Structure formats: structure tokens, C-alpha cells
């Protein structure tokens, strides 16, 4: 399989309110993250709120301009180019289906906007036909095209969001927590739809979510982020069953399993304390303040993100001892 997207040393800093006049402070939302996604693959990104997973997703398609680093899409460096032609190839589905649809536009116009921008339909009739095909593709019907977002339930709105992303016939979609706002019984519908669309259209996903069960279900590989850093990246089974980084281990063990017997037998690693402020991250390894294996070296040196087994990357001083 060929690599579709490659991200090298990506950084995204946001300026933060400074404590003194001349000392500018930055919030390092994404700090030196590298990964690649193959064509047709789903890469999952998990982590707690504020770890930079959404920022990574948005920077990769340049909704945020990267502070440093390189984004290579299909062999071409897109870090500084005009994105318009690439917007046809790279799309995004947002988390909140209530906030990401313009309440004053009809569903037809929401889906059709991208068709207009990229001149994908020469005539009005073709535009209409295209919109209807897209709506049907995501399990809605032609009659829905003239309605407004408020008339739909959360799950249906997320379908509209997906239809909008599909309108330009993209190759790559960033799915930014697309199911977290939905009811459990609806989540499965949307997850299945993502899988079916992928099979049908050969899509590549960057799937961002905080729910590891969902991410593991849909992804081929998973990356775990903590305070702006990628701490572990591996095949999704390898990551859930043979994780190496202490943070990943605790993350996996902290997830309540929907099975009373299993959950009684499970060993939980409960982490102490809270995530430190990203404005003032700990020196060396960022996880060390909550890690029970932390030693002197963890405070002094930042662990290198290296491949320890085939395809299994991890950034930790002690995990391979």
C-alpha cells in the first residue's frame, strides 16, 4: 500500500496571554508529531481533552496553519500551497452536528455548497440530482433536501455532515469525534456507515475520538496523544492488548467494559492527579508527573519516539526494560 499522507515533525503553537509584556508565551497544542497514513487505511487518534488530537486533525488539512513541520499528501508537500484544489481531496466531519451546520441553509444547500465552489455540476438539474444521490448515499432521502437542520435528530445531522464531506468525492476524511455527541444506539449506525463508505469508495480516514473502544473498532492503527505529543503508535490490536507506554496502559485499563463479570476481574491502573497545563508542560517526558515508573532521566531528557517492534512506535525511557 502506498502512503497517502505523511506528517513530519508537525508543530502547532497558539499564542497565549503573556504574563509579562515582552515574554510571549505559546500553548504548544501539537509539538513535534510525525506519522503517516496509507491509502485506504484508518488511523485512529486517541487522547484526553486538550491533548492536541483535534488540533492535529485540523492542522493536517490546514484548517490551522502549521507552526513548523511538513505535511506531504500523495507525494506533494502541501504545507504552504494553495489548498483549494486539495479541498476536493481532503475533507472533514466535525464533532458537533448541532453547531457545524448553518441553521439558515437548507440541507440541499449545505451539501450543494461544495459542489458550487468546485463547479462539479454544470447545470441546475445535475446539481440537484447529485445532492439527492449524496443524501441517499448516507441514508437520507430526496425530500430532506428542502428542510432545515433543526428538523433533524443528532444522528441525521451527522449524516448531513458526512454527505457534505462526500460531495466533492474526496480521498481522505478527517473524522473529528464524529460519534461522541450521539446516543449509543445511533453511534453504531454512523460507525457502520463510515466503514461501508470506506469499502465502497476506498476512503482513507484519520479518526479522532476520546473513546478508545470506538477508535479500536474502526481503526487499523492507533496513535495515542498526551499533552501535544504522540506517545505510542501501533496496530490497533497490538495497542489495546500489548501496549507499552504506561499512559496507554492506564488509558486502556481505565475504560469501563460493558460486562459485569469482566469489569470485576479487570485490573485497573488508576492514574493519580490531573493532566498538567499545556502552557507549562513538565520538562523531559511530559507524562512523568503522573507516571509511577518515572526516574531522574525522565525529567532530564525527552524520550525519543522510536520503533521498538515492527510497526510499534513508543516514546518512553523505561518501557522496553
Amino acid at each position: 500500500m502506498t502512503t497517502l499522507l505523511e506528517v513530519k515533525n508537525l508543530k502547532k503553537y497558539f499564542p497565549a496571554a503573556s504574563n509579562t509584556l515582552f515574554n510571549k508565551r505559546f500553548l504548544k497544542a501539537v509539538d513535534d508529531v510525525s506519522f503517516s497514513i496509507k491509502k485506504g487505511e484508518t488511523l485512529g487518534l486517541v487522547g484526553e481533552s486538550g491533548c492536541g488530537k483535534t488540533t492535529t486533525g485540523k492542522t493536517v488539512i490546514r484548517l490551522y496553519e502549521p507552526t513548523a513541520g511538513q505535511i506531504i499528501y500523495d507525494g506533494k508537500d502541501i504545507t504552504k500551497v494553495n489548498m483549494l484544489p486539495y479541498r476536493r481531496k481532503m475533507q472533514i466531519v466535525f464533532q458537533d452536528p448541532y453547531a457545524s451546520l448553518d441553521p439558515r441553509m437548507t440541507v440541499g444547500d449545505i451539501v450543494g455548497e461544495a459542489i458550487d465552489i468546485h463547479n462539479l455540476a454544470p447545470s441546475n438539474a445535475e446539481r440537484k440530482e447529485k445532492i439527492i444521490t449524496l443524501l441517499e448515499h448516507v441514508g437520507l432521502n430526496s425530500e430532506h433536501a428542502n428542510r432545515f437542520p433543526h428538523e433533524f435528530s443528532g444522528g441525521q445531522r451527522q449524516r448531513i455532515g458526512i454527505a457534505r464531506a462526500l460531495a466533492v468525492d474526496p480521498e481522505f476524511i478527517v473524522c473529528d469525534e464524529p460519534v461522541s455527541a450521539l446516543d449509543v444506539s445511533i453511534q453504531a449506525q454512523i460507525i457502520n456507515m463510515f466503514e461501508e463508505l470506506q469499502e465502497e469508495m476506498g476512503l482513507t480516514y484519520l479518526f479522532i475520538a476520546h473513546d478508545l473502544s470506538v477508535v479500536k473498532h474502526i481503526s487499523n492503527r492507533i496513535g495515542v496523544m498526551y499533552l501535544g505529543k504522540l506517545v505510542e503508535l501501533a496496530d490497533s490490536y497490538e495497542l489495546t492488548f500489548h501496549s507499552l507506554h504506561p499512559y496507554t496502559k492506564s488509558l486502556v485499563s481505565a475504560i469501563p467494559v460493558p460486562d459485569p463479570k469482566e469489569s470485576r476481574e479487570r485490573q485497573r491502573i488508576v492514574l493519580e492527579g490531573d493532566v498538567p497545563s499545556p502552557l507549562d508542560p513538565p520538562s523531559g517526558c511530559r507524562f512523568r508527573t503522573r507516571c509511577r515508573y518515572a526516574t531522574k532521566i525522565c525529567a532530564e531528557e525527552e524520550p525519543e519516539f522510536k520503533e521498538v517492534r515492527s510497526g510499534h512506535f513508543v516514546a518512553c525511557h523505561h518501557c522496553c526494560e
Partner: protein
Amino acid sequence: MSEYLVDIQNLRLSFFTPAGEVKALNDVSIQMKQGDVLGIVGESGSGKSVTAYSLMGLVPEPGRILSGSIIFNGHRIHEMSEKELRQIRGNEISIIFQDPMTSLNPVFTIGNQIEEVILLHTDKNRKEARERAEELLSLVGINEPKKRLRQYPHELSGGMRQRVMIAIALACEPKLLIADEPTTALDVTIQAQILELMNELKEKIGMSIIMITHDLGVVASMCEKIAVMYAGKIVEYGTAEEIFYNPQHEYTKGLLLSIPKLTATEHEKLIPIEGTPVDMLMPPQGCPFAPRCQNTMKICLKEMPPYTDINEDHYSACWLLQKQAYMTMKDGVAR
């Protein structure tokens, strides 16, 4: 006095909105003994929060209780005045909310907010109240309680705020703690801390807990009894084991099949529940789940199914179970 701590009988509650009547609770009955941990699961709008709030006499406008009774610890909640209710709330029964960011008052210190409850319900003086507040903060695992008491909510993280909420709720050692999605707004590692804390405190204080959540993982790890709600009705009730290993209602079965399991070793396709949640303004006639059910029969569309007892501690409202019961009975007669 009844043997139950909580005894809700045939509660019907409606919201009279400008758009029409929303039957939020439709004949809900719940019994709980002292020390029980009950989980209420269901999707948004299924009435799980309303059930729990009504126990505290919190029925927001334009809601009205139409019929039924709510008895808590011998108090007839549905007949009590606001003044009488205030004696109970925060004292015998307390609640923690989903969002610790908005449920604390930003202009008072943590200390003020914990002491308020103590001063209101006990005859402790200010100094004793402060000591008790300090004790509570260490009970919920907050370091340096003396310093924290002087801080404001914005100075604490989400997990810490939820701990403070729990401290406030426990101030008077309530008989019942209602936890309304207490960990939904928190990260997984923080969620694990809070769940562990609640488990510990339950052992220590011996209170009952009603846990409202949509996360089946959370109920599996916390609750002994589970009530599954759909469209304002308890569609299935049983022990955690019965609900997870022997589900009877089609909705419960569907729910269990539709969640991805972290511990699955092979990729299994999820089986979603098709359709959309019920429009509570226009609920279907008959069984509310019928439009989304795979095994709908004619009668499901016409009449609400009665409860069928599966065993002593397990019942469910589904016509399929009635049919099975009828079939076995008929077989018995024929033989």
C-alpha cells in the same frame, strides 16, 4: 413504614410545552432498598433524569405529576411543600450533576459552598462546619484541603470540581445519592478516579446510589440493579448479570449489540438499532420501541405491553415475552 428506601409507584409526569404535551414518564415504578446501587440507562430524552429528579421533588416547569406516588424514606415527596422538601434535599438525599463546571457557584469559595450545606442542615457552628468541610475534602481525595477551601471553582480542574461536588453531596451523609451522568464530562482516566471514589464511599458510608448514565460500561462496573428506560418507560429491569447476560427486551438486546467492545479480539461488525429515537411530542401508539424493533407484531403497534416477570428480580415490557408465556401455557394445557 415500607421496607423500601425508595418507592416510586406508577408515576406519570408530563411537560406541558407550547408545542403540546410531552409524556416524560409513563407509568414508572421503582423500588430500592437501603444500600442498593441502581443504574438507570437510556438515551437522551428517555426520562432517566426526570425520574431521579422527581425523587427530590425537582419537577421543572412546565412539568406536572399527573398520577402516582413517590415515597422516599417514609416521606411522601409528591405531597410535600417546597419548604418541607428543602429539609430533605442535601440532607437525606443529594445529587451530583453531569457538568461540574456549571454546578458550582463561581463567586463563592469551595469552603463557602460546602459549609453552606452543613450550616443549613446541622446545628454545627461556623468553626465546626469548616472542620467538617476540611474532613470532607480529604475524604474525596483532595490534597491540601485547607488551601483548597479558600479557592474558587475556576482554580480547580474538572476532576477536582467533581470531587468538590461529591463532597458537598456527602456533607450530611445522605441516605441516597443521585449521580446524574457524573463522569460524562470527564476524561477516561479522571472518570476512573471518580468511579473508584464513589465505590469506596459507598462502602464507607453505606448509602444508596442511583447512577444515571448512557454508558453501559459505567453501569457494568458500578451497579447491582439496572433499569433500562425508553421513551419514558422502564422497558426492562434486572440485576446487572441478568441485563448483560440474559437481556429480554429487544431494545436492551440491541443496545448491547451496538456498542464496540474494547476486549473483542476480532473485528465484529456492529449491529445498530435502526431508525431514530422517539419524537416525544408524537409518541407512537402501543410499544414506543415498535417502530425500531426487528420483531414487531401487530399488537405491538396497538397496545402498550404489560410487564412480564422473567424471574424474581427481572422483568421486562415486551409483547414477545407475553407471547412466549402464552405459548408455554397453552402447551401445558394441551398436554
